[in-house]
């Protein structure tokens, strides 16, 4: 038998620098890698959550499109749904003729969610309330992030006495029950300012500062010890550069998950504040406030004034939570191997193929 040929040794590979397009594509791929690797359940959670939240987002962005009436509208110009009390030009109802909205009317085709005892259309209140909810939640979590993240970064990176003081301070704030803290802050602010969007935002925002601070600080502490940070220090980068260019982007990836879960919680806190009367004042539309207004209705047996606002809260919070849970599953998966069903396939290499004829490889017993 001829001597077997050996193939020539393969040429050494030549290194080529990646093009800019490839770099960007690579970045995008890297960002979406967790999504592609995630299990379908997590992805479903996020998608459903996004859908639910988007519904409310649409309501928040385009309230006048969906809502037939203004949030505090109790009468309308005959033949239209226009609010004679709204807008720059106030209409003279005696001249034009205005109709009043029905009082405590059950859900009907004209008022799908019914009307309240103050003659407000419940559905319109829900839609306008969505705008208030989104505004306050975004602003308050923005506030909390704006304070908590930089403080956490600095505190974690610097360490020392400042860090210790901040940690204890944040822990003290964290310990106070969220709603209680919001109530106190709202109460205090009402001495200075009129109750409204601003005071509600600050009241809700303060509650979540410690969470951002803690998470960012912890993440910073661990990133601080990474070799690339040490390398940056070695080449003489200033602390500010290190933090903003290296540490920040690493640490910021933990924010989206907390953000959605915090946003969900913020909606609940705002609703609680509103229910107790410390949020935005009547007649502004706020779901929690509406529920408290509906207490007397419930006693009398009218259910729709309380049911729909509460349902809205529940649905929005569920949507936000689903996004958060799904993101959490994707970003921090509890490792799993799944999906292989059925038998191990029979292989072509069965026993009969072993050389030497006998079926058993008798690598016999001990020597």
């Amino acid at each position: 038998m001829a001597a077997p040929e050996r193939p020539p040794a393969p040429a050494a590979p030549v290194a080529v620098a990646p093009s800019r397009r490839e770099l960007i594509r690579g970045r995008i791929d890297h960002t979406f890698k967790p999504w592609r690797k995630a299990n379908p359940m997590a992805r479903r959670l996020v998608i459903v959550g996004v859908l639910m939240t988007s519904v409310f987002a649409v309501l928040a962005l385009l309230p006048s499109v969906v809502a037939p009436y203004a949030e505090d509208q109790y009468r309308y110009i005959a033949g239209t749904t226009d609010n004679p009390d709204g807008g720059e030009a106030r209409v003279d109802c005696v001249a034009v003729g205005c109709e009043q909205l029905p009082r405590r009317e059950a859900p009907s085709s004209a008022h799908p969610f019914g009307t309240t005892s103050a003659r407000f259309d419940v559905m319109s209140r829900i839609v306008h309330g969505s705008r208030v909810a989104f505004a306050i939640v975004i602003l308050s979590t923005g506030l909390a992030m704006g304070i908590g993240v930089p403080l956490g970064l600095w505190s974690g990176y610097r360490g020392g006495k400042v860090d210790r003081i901040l940690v204890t301070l944040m822990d003290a704030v964290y310990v106070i029950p969220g709603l209680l803290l919001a109530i106190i802050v709202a109460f205090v602010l009402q001495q200075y300012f009129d109750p409204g969007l601003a005071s509600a935002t600050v009241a809700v925002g303060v509650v979540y500062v410690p969470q951002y601070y803690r998470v960012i600080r912890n993440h910073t502490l661990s990133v601080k010890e990474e070799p690339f940070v040490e390398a940056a220090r070695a080449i003489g980068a200033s602390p500010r550069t290190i933090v903003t260019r290296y540490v920040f982007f690493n640490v910021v990836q933990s924010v989206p998950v907390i953000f959605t879960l915090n946003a969900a919680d913020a909606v609940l806190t705002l609703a609680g504040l509103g229910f107790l009367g410390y949020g935005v004042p009547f007649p502004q539309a706020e779901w929690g406030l509406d529920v408290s207004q509906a207490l007397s209705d419930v006693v009398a047996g009218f259910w729709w004034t309380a049911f729909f606002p509460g349902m809205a809260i529940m649905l929005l919070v569920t949507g936000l939570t689903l996004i958060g849970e799904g993101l959490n599953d994707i970003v921090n998966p509890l490792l799993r191997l799944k999906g292989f069903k059925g038998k191990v396939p029979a292989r072509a290499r069965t026993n009969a193929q072993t050389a030497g004829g006998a079926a058993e490889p008798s690598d016999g017993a001990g020597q």
Partner: protein
Amino acid sequence: MTANAPMPEPALRVRDLQVAYGTPRGSLQAVDGVSFDLAPGESLGIVGESGCGKSSMGRGLMQLLPPGAAVGGSVLLNGEELIGVDAGRLRRARGEDIAMVFQEPMTRLDPLMRVSKHFVEAIRAHRPEVSKADARQMGRDILAQMGIPPTRADNYPHEFSGGMRQRIMIALGIVLQPTVIIADEPTTALDVIVEAQILDLLDRLRTDENVGLLLITHNLGLVAETCDRVAVMYAGRIVEIGPVVDVFANPRHPYTQGLLRSVISIETTKLVSIDGTPPDLVDPPAGCRFAPRCAQAFGDCTTVDPVLADVDVGHRAACLLQTGSYPQRMGVTA
């Protein structure tokens, strides 16, 4: 004992063992047709680099696999088939007939449970007629054999060092006198001195209790010192198997040769490694799986899958450099 005395029945007889995991990309064949025998009191070392399937094989023998994994082939323990047996019989076999000692002793004991309770639980899982007091005593006895004083038997796991915990794990493994022990990298997480002690212990078990030992490790030196035979695994298969002395003195498979060359010793002046990486086990290449990395590969290597063939007494290798390894040449004497 005459020369024609019958060979003793192997304690463990493995034929065409398969272990596959389900992954999003498809089924990953971690162990692809492994066969070997283990005699009572014999120690067989399984070596290979990370990902070669040796740990999966160890787990496959015990059928301790994560959900979504599947095992196939035949595992005869003392003549009894374990693959496909019902769950109850399998549970009883584990610990009593075949036992496993794992790699990281630090996390293998329930932190909330005293060590003595671990023994009581293990013993009574197989022999419920044994009283708790007796079981505790059995535990204390075996711990004493392992060098752990009976006064410490009631401590919690975190009160022991890594080496002691590994000894506790071994004690738990042998308390019911199994026929075979599978030790999966038992000393990797421990320092060298403790490692020597543990290996001594395992050796004593073999000689005193006639327990068969399957030592899974990536450390060739360990195998050389303590094992009777060695099996070299690559990409889910055994590529070479035989007595330690023979295989290490006269390796026939290029992979084994590469492994031995890369071992570092006092005399090492230059670091040697095998270029390349192991193949993708979801979609393995045709032909010999080592061919892409093999300096001695030739034309047939990428098309023909070699089988294990005798190269010496009790020494077999799967490489096309031995004509016996061509599958269609079975039954033909060279």
